[in-house]
């Protein structure tokens, strides 16, 4: 029995990394339910990276191809995924709570007339039922829920489900599926790429955020240099104060009215730690704070803190990280 359908994402014909997290979550639920994991990916043709999915626990990979599936188109994708999900009678349909997943999962849930648990940080099977834990009130509390829908639909918060290798015997069977074209009314005309190599704060394994302590927008270059020292895996985030002041784009804001992030390492530089900011980053695995005020609230929730002048500390840290990455 196929228990779980994992709906994956590609960009420019390559599987997005968040897909490994979704398959990891799917494997965990499928083991609890006693069934197989099927991965579904929509594209114009074969998607690079799908051959790796068996390693993370996928039993079967379905590539749904259609000329309109090159980049995300809400209506065509929603129709294709909902119809596939309906036909397969899965117990669970899983998405990533990425920008695409947050758009797609509610549409699919509405089409199937079942409930959706969004931005889930933990999943389990208890007494045969799927349960999920999700941060609410901006992470100031956790809501544990039981899903009764058939299928249960969940979208997993990016960066939380660390990909675990759970190789399946043999290669995952790859099935191509032709999906009839249907013109959607909402058309993505263009995707404007951000600066080359930029990693999104919501998905980066390392996030370095700056606040008012940086004094001037131009000083964010200190954080960008530190990010580069990590070799492309780090993103630069910002507090609400500096976004509201127009120093940084809203896309970089971490906190209650910005992004909630859960990186492996979060470095808060010149951020005092207002409750709205803490809400957006408290589920980070390790938090480092650099601030001149030893009484700043950020030191209450950080794992490691350095008190002092960030303009001296950050360049030194950049040097030390460069040494490591030699």
């Amino acid at each position, binding site marked *: 029995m196929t228990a779980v359908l994992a709906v994956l994402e590609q960009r420019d014909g390559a599987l997005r990394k968040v897909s490994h997290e979704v398959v990891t979550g799917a494997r965990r639920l499928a083991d609890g339910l006693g069934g197989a994991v099927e991965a579904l990916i929509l594209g114009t043709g074969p998607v690079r990276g799908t051959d790796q999915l068996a390693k993370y626990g996928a039993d079967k990979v379905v590539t749904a191809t259609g000329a309109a599936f090159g980049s995300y188109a809400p209506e065509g994708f929603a129709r294709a995924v909902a119809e596939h999900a309906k036909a397969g009678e899965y117990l669970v349909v899983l998405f990533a709570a990425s920008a695409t997943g947050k758009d797609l999962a509610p549409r699919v849930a509405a089409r199937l007339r079942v409930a959706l648990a969004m931005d889930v940080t933990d999943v389990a099977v208890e007494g045969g039922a799927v349960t999920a834990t999700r941060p609410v009130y901006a992470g100031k509390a956790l809501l*544990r829920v039981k899903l009764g829908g058939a299928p249960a639909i969940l979208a997993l918060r990016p960066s939380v489900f660390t990909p675990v290798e759970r190789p399946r015997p043999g290669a995952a069977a790859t099935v191509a599926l032709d999906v009839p074209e249907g013109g959607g009314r909402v058309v993505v005309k263009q995707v404007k790429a951000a600066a080359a190599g930029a990693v999104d704060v919501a998905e980066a394994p390392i996030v370095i955020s700056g606040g008012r302590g940086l004094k001037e927008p131009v000083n964010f270059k200190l954080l960008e240099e530190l990010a580069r020292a990590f070799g492309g895996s780090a993103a630069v985030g910002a507090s609400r104060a500096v976004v509201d002041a127009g120093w940084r*784009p809203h896309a970089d804001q971490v906190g209650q009215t910005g992004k909630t992030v859960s990186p492996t390492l979060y470095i808060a530089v010149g951020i005092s730690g207002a409750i709205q900011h803490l809400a957006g980053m408290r589920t980070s695995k390790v938090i480092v704070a650099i601030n001149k005020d030893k009484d700043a609230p950020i030191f209450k929730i950080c794992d490691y803190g350095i008190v002092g002048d960030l303009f001296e500390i950050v360049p030194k840290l950049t040097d030390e990280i460069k040494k490591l990455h030699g």
Partner: protein
Amino acid sequence: MKIAVCIKRVPDSETRVKIAPDGKSLDEAGVKFVLNPYDEFAVEEALRRKEQAGAGEVVIVCLGPAAAQETIRSALAMGADRGVLLQTDKIPADGLEVAKALAAELNDGEWDLILFGKMAIDDYNHQVGPMVAELLGLPCVTAVARLDLAAGTGTAEREIEGGIEVVEFPLPAVLTTEKGLNEPRYPALKGIMAAKKKPLATKPVALSTGGIEVLALLPPAERKEGRIVGEGPDAVPELVRLLREDAKVL
């Protein structure tokens, strides 16, 4: 331009969360409630579009308890024309049930636009807007950070990981608003006074629990208080050592 804006009454973002004795909900004692911040962008956008068109109506629709009348009044004080409260004491955790009630109210309304905030800052459900669109069969763009409207069509920008999607859609449509779309106005005293006299209809609704059963509302995992590694740049080598050897994140 006939525009509906769906709003929610939520605890202020400064709220310190205290869990009620049932172990499943927020203890509302002493909590200040406000108009959901993302919905403010939706109200502001609706008012600007009506002002540009020179004619039309902005209707506020809210599902919530009787106290949400106050939340609707705050949107009316910004300049909206009238309000509808779908009154229920209990908002289900299942966003689809909320979407069904809103869709039933909005159906046949001949709206040019139906606007939502992209999410509510209490339940983080992040789903009701696109669900309403699906139930009504309308095109929908979520998390709109920039919007241009022309006769019968619109162009929106939405932030995705590492880029911006430029999306075209026909009207009528459902849009959900992202921070940055506009700068919401503060209600003027005149607006606040005028809001008291604007029509506000109350309709009782009964919602089903739907497919999500709340098991518990829990405090977040405690982070043990961290350690100050040291002061100034001299502490950096020790920090790096701890990150490598203790935390094992480098």
